[in-house]
């Protein structure tokens, strides 16, 4: 029999035995499919601390040289001359934190995210289906398990379930990875992980540790897990670096159905133009490897170059460098280049 516990504090949650349940859209499916042992559940929906979304204070700066006079009583009471609080400048903040239990729909609606991190809000607010977005959470999205149908079928004991073979390699791998990073060819299912990788975000684990997205996701070599989170560890939030107002973004997914589906390939781009040239740029791709990937060679080839179509194409053509597709998924190589190019074009064109 399985017990469901409903802790209300982070500490209680972390101390409760069992698997965490956020929106439950993945974990409950896996239990019903008979591929996850039926252990106790720790439901996180009643932990208010995990639902916060806020700006972080800027790192302390030295103010000793120009100490400000405290306002006089008169100043404080005079209606006409009440000092307006200095306008809050997100750019000068310490970044933005999103609680683990914030839903995708909330992220999509958040004014802060829409204004300052439109590339994240736009993708979070459009993924999966409205029903899933309403309950599916940030941490649940990052930690959902892969979609490989052998993994999702109780009767195939593959590497990912502690077995000794990968069925997809010899059989149907049409939806699988084209980068051979480890025994499993299942692709990482999380779109938000890919986007956050492009945002250089950190994952905050209970206890206060911050781990870069890259370190959190790991190298994709261990078939038993899709990240480096220790068993039982609780993700409490994601921390975004301060926003960059000049930034443009582009996202493109290739998908077998127009909506309500994990992508065949997806790519996310953030870039800044300096005149006609490309300055800062981050390019990430998903659904092509056991972890989302930063395409550093694409980024390097773009940096400092003019944002011409030829340059974008040349860069996009590098997207699949190092790929070793299987016979049934070679189509993803062209698709990856196509998605990266489209995402770059959208970013240069103003963002969508």
């Amino acid at each position, binding site marked *: 029999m399985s017990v469901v516990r409903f802790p209300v504090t982070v500490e209680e949650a972390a101390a409760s035995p069992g698997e965490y349940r956020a929106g439950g859209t993945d974990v409950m499916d896996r239990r019903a499919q008979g591929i996850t042992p039926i252990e106790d559940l720790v439901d996180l929906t009643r932990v208010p601390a995990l639902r916060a979304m806020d700006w972080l204070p800027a790192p302390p700066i030295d103010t000793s040289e120009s100490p400000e006079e405290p306002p006089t009583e008169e100043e404080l009471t005079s209606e006409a001359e009440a000092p307006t609080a200095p306008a809050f400048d997100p750019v000068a903040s310490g970044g933005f934190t999103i609680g683990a239990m914030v839903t995708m729909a909330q992220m999509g609606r958040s004014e802060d995210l829409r204004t300052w991190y439109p590339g994240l809000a736009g993708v979070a607010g459009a993924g999966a289906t409205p029903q899933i977005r309403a309950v599916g959470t940030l941490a649940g999205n990052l930690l959902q398990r892969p979609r490989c*149908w052998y993994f999702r079928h109780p009767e195939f004991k593959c590497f990912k379930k502690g077995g000794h073979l990968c069925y997809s390699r010899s059989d*149907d791998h049409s939806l699988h990875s084209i980068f051979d990073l480890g025994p499993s060819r299942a692709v990482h299912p999380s779109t938000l992980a890919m986007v956050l990788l492009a945002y250089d975000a950190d994952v905050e684990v209970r206890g206060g540790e911050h781990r870069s997205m890259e370190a959190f996701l790991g190298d994709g070599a261990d078939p038993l897990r899709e990240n480096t989170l220790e068993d039982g560890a609780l993700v409490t939030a994601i921390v975004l670096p301060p926003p960059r107002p000049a930034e443009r973004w582009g996202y493109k997914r*290739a*998908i*077998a159905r127009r*909506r309500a589906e994990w992508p065949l*390939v997806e790519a996310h781009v953030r870039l800044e133009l300096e005149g006609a040239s490309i300055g800062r740029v981050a390019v990430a791709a998903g659904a092509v490897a056991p972890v989302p990937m930063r395409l550093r060679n694409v980024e390097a080839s773009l940096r400092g170059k003019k944002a011409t179509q030829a340059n974008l194409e040349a860069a996009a053509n590098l997207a699949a460098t190092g790929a070793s597709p299987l016979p049934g998924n070679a*189509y993803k190589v062209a698709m990856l280049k196509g998605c990266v190019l*489209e995402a770059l074009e959208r970013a240069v064109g103003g963002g969508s």
Partner: protein
Amino acid sequence: MTYMGTSPTRPDAAAKATGRAEYISDAVRPGMLHGAIRFSEHAHARILRIDTSKAERIPGVRAVITAENTPEVRLGFLRDNLALKKGKVRQFRDEIAAVAAIDPDIAAEAAAAIEVEYEPLPAVFDPIEALAEGAPLVHDVDPRGRPVTSNLMPVHFRHFSGDVEKARAASAYVAEGEWSTPLIQQTCMGTAGCIAEFDPQMNLTVWAKTQIPFLAQRDFNGALAQMGLRNKNARVIVPALGGGFGTGLDTHCYEYISILLAWKTGKPVKVQYNRDQEFAYLSPRQSATVRMAQGCDRDGRLTFRHVHVVQDNGAYGSWGATYPSVMLLPATSLYRVPNIYFDCELVYTNNTYAQAMRGYGNPELTFALESNLDQLAEEAGIDAAQLRLINCNEPNEVTPMGLKVATCGLRECLEQTAERLDWDNKRGAPDGTARGVGMASLIHVGGSGRIYRSDASGVILRFDDWGNLYLSSGGVEMGQGLHSSLQIVAADAIGVAPDRVFINQTDTSTCPWDVGTHASRGAFTACNALLMGATKLRDKVFRAAVELYPQLVEEALRKQRKRDPDAPAPSFDWRSRIDADAFDLREGQVFLSNTDDPVLRVDLGKLIRAAHFRDGGGQMFTVEAFYDPPSELPDWEQGQGNMSACYTFGTQGVEVEVDTDTGDVRILKMAAVLDVGKVINPQILRGQTIGALAQGVGYALYEEVKTERGRILNPNFTDYKIPTAVEMDFPIELEFVETDEPTGPYGAKGIGEPGLVPTAPAIANAIADAVGVRIHDLPITPEKLLAALRAKNEEAT
């Protein structure tokens, strides 16, 4: 006619919209137990041992059954399937044992606790391999125990007319190829289930999600006989159905299992599939491979058509194994072709066994035929729409199969589709975009399809004392709107308001015989029976009126005079006009035709009560009618016979845009023009057609049951993709051509299935027009498109 061609609120709308309609998943009987089935874990294996002892010891379990402790119950029209398998399993979902328990969880736990020991056998999953010498035999003996030597099913459908080889040699242009279609699920929103209950006399009632209540009754009575319950009866009651799409054309193992469990326990037993189980354990539409060649002369006239079909039937035969009976329609009769070869091989494999689905073989064959026709047009350098028009079927023709086509609007369908797509400007336009247009047509049975000796529908009509009409039909309302059609036709034909027409729940104990709701026949046959009954019922009313109308009018006149002494008398001598033929009945009022004097209108209820309570012997107003369409049971070996009373035609056109980087196909627009004979209810016709188009879009682009050596890999809506509202968000132009079919009720033809038939080839043809590659196997996924585009580019460089 007042109601034909209008859309009064359908009678089931309010109950369904408010959640009050009772589907099988809602149904409960007092003292009911819940059944769970233990399915095979192998595609092909000998059963060595079944140990049920652990399951039996679980508290709450009331019975555990296997083939060992129950009578053998055979099913399927080939009698090749057993409700509980004995000796060996032939597919993953084979039923080995079952449990009845006090709740569904205990039942499931007990089913899982049954231990089965197997000896795995070599299995075969590919129909071509299954036909090879030395392939493992799915069935080693036939139902009578005689040894079998091949996996070919003992079912034959053929047609040969003219001289195909000679015609091929003489053709100016020939195109050929091979096309294949996947296993797909019917994806009814209401999942399968049933309740079986014996009364103290051991008569059985089954609440079944069926489209064939009367054939199910026959099947269940057969099972009762096999169980030793001779001279007992099975009553079948059909709850509200959340879609049928062919899944209710056969009776199923789970139904017999609930009967056996009810018999063992003496309690009602329900077996209810959830969505995952529906995907895993209910028969899908089979996959088929069609080799097709067609030729034409210099002027584009078709010279021959050569068709060979291989159909993977899975481990057992269902009615779905007779798909070729309907494939024969397009193969022999879509467009005019003089020389035809049609042959098929139906093959047993260790895949999940398949069953009927909307269109019944027609979409499979039409996908190949219409794709191949576009290729031929290209070979011949003739515009694809033109080629179709050159060979268009016409009214009053007899096709090579012997189909007697009286009305045919195909020419108009083709022309209208081309116009709505702006075909002349868009087809083949080298506009630098990856946009294209394509079209495809259909022929389907429009006046039922005779595959049994009887193809009939009965109807019983009864007026109660208040002039309400009770209509009993054996036809099944599964969401398609049959009851609305009956209501509309009854209202016009009998003369009562639609909301005074009450339609009985389908129940074999109260409704008259009907062969079943399939082959797009429901409205056609039931409304024809209704029209026959309407004449009888009106006649009965008018005969009573001859005697009773005068006194009722006199009484009304007396009352009128009392109220208003100056009221004018009727303007003519109504008494002298009284005659059974002179009466009319409209909106529940009986009157002499051609008068509108309100005082001369008698309320139908009043008249009926007067007849009922008449001194010296009252009367009831009940009639029955039975309609069997004027069609023939074809000779399947020859592929000859006029299987339907009339034929539905139509054309669909699609405009698509392909993203050549991602293989994404976007439908920009669809046009569907259908020859429906006559529109009964425009709203339902639109709904029915758009629903079919959506299924067609799914078939073309998204849907496929993925299997891995017989195991189903995507048994859920997350991994099995049907189109959602988002994918269907494009303009759909619907047009209905009214050809006024003489055999149809008020001129209407059956339109339940056809909307789905030509969608996939129309999309495939549009994609070929857009990007120059043709995908031969459905669904047309981005993977396949990108691979084909790459191959094309490599060829070019």
